[in-house]
């Protein structure tokens, strides 16, 4: 139960690379799983490892979720996460460029734990990731696991 895995749901390969870089710059060594669209995210959370035996993956300790995703919308992913008893309490941080009020309120009403806007300035982004890492991986107590 020591492995604190971060699930990054991000379709933009540049943003993915930059986020990983930001995590590395902050010495966050945790394993980062990347889902590149909604379908992959759901598969990671609810599907099996594919290694045979129907073994379920351990749940991540936090999900960094982008809203604008192809195939299945980020907010829909959030809805499914909250709807399933296995992942109902899973901390979800919405990480997005959107400044629209409606995304903010929809995100929170669907049960997001946090809403962080991705700044254009990379230095600020690195700082934001540092704070996110510090909070969600170290300071915050994750909810009890159901497995």
């Amino acid at each position: 139960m020591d492995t604190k895995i971060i699930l990054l749901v991000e379709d933009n390969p540049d943003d993915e690379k930059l986020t990983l870089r930001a995590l590395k710059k902050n010495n966050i060594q945790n394993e980062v799983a990347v889902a590149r669209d909604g379908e992959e995210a759901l598969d990671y959370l609810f599907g099996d490892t594919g290694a045979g035996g129907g073994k379920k993956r351990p749940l991540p300790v936090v999900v960094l979720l982008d809203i604008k995703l192809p195939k299945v919308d980020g907010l829909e992913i959030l809805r499914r996460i909250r709807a399933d008893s296995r992942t109902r309490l899973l901390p979800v941080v919405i990480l997005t460029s959107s400044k629209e009020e409606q995304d903010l309120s929809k995100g929170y009403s669907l049960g997001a734990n946090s809403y962080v806007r991705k700044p254009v300035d990379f230095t600020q982004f690195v700082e934001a990731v540092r704070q996110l890492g510090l909070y969600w991986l170290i300071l915050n107590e994750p909810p009890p696991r159901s497995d």
Partner: protein
Amino acid sequence: MATPIEPPAGSLEEKLATLDNVQRATLNILEDFDSEKQRLEEVQRASLNILEDFDAEKTRLEGVQRAAINILEDFDEEKKMLQGVQRATLNILEDFNAEKTLLEDSQRALLNILEDIDVEKAKVGTVNQQLEVANKELEAFSYSVSHDLRAPLRSIDGFSLALLEDYGNKLDKEGRDYLERVRGATQHMAQLIDDMLNLSRVTRSEMRHETVDLSAMVREIAEGLRKTQPEQQVEFITAENVTATGDERLLRVVMQNLLGNAWKYTGKHAQARIEFGVKDEGGKPVFYIRDDGAGFNIAYADKLFGVFQRLHRRGEFPGTGVGLATVQRIIHRHGGRVWAEAEVEKGATFYFTLSS
């Protein structure tokens, strides 16, 4: 007593006795005649009274007759008057008929106009619907644009910084300068996108009418500015209890822009003073924000509120030239005016009114 009178027979005494009787009878008859006469006189008097009464009655009846004749004459006059009224009424009825026909014509004309108005209204309704659709599309477009444009900007900035950090030592000063410029331009573009998005939102959003505490708003914004750059020495003088009627969010954008500008353009002065107040001009309140910073040349004042127009170089003071255009648009939506006075290096004062 119908016995014929014969000379009395007998002696003298007998004859005297008979004469006495005759005299007495005659006196009786005379008395009877007297009472009859009196009776007749009474009858006569009664008759005369009756005749007098009849006369009085006759006079009364004549009076009644005269009165009746007068009444008949009055009736006649009344009848003539009524006939006159009747004729006048008939005339009025004819006029009414004419008026009625005119009114019916007007009514028909009005109904036609109302039908036309209905058609126009339906057209306006359609146009309104189209505008709403266009607005929604614009909203969605702006949202997309802002979101989708930011992502590549983030990539440009991020990887430029990555280059600097990881390969900076392989670049000379010129090379590093180029990358810094790339980053700077990226930041600027991000700011432009945000400002333009705000500007378009200002025109499209619905306006609320509420009482806004401007003094409190100024204090909050000033606090926020202090937090971003605590090393800047600025004295804020805020008039107390200044309120206005308008849309709170939009007015906040105005104050953020004006105070942000005041803060920015006093940035190069060691000590600065920013003042917010309201003065009365002809019964209307005029709000102002005054700073003693860099100011500007009033000769260029007509460019002040133009979109993307700036009176300072980006090197001197950062900015996109959209802030004051946004301020002006909001003030105009409130039915007010905004203008400025300034002098180079002596500061600037921005005034605005809101419709009461």
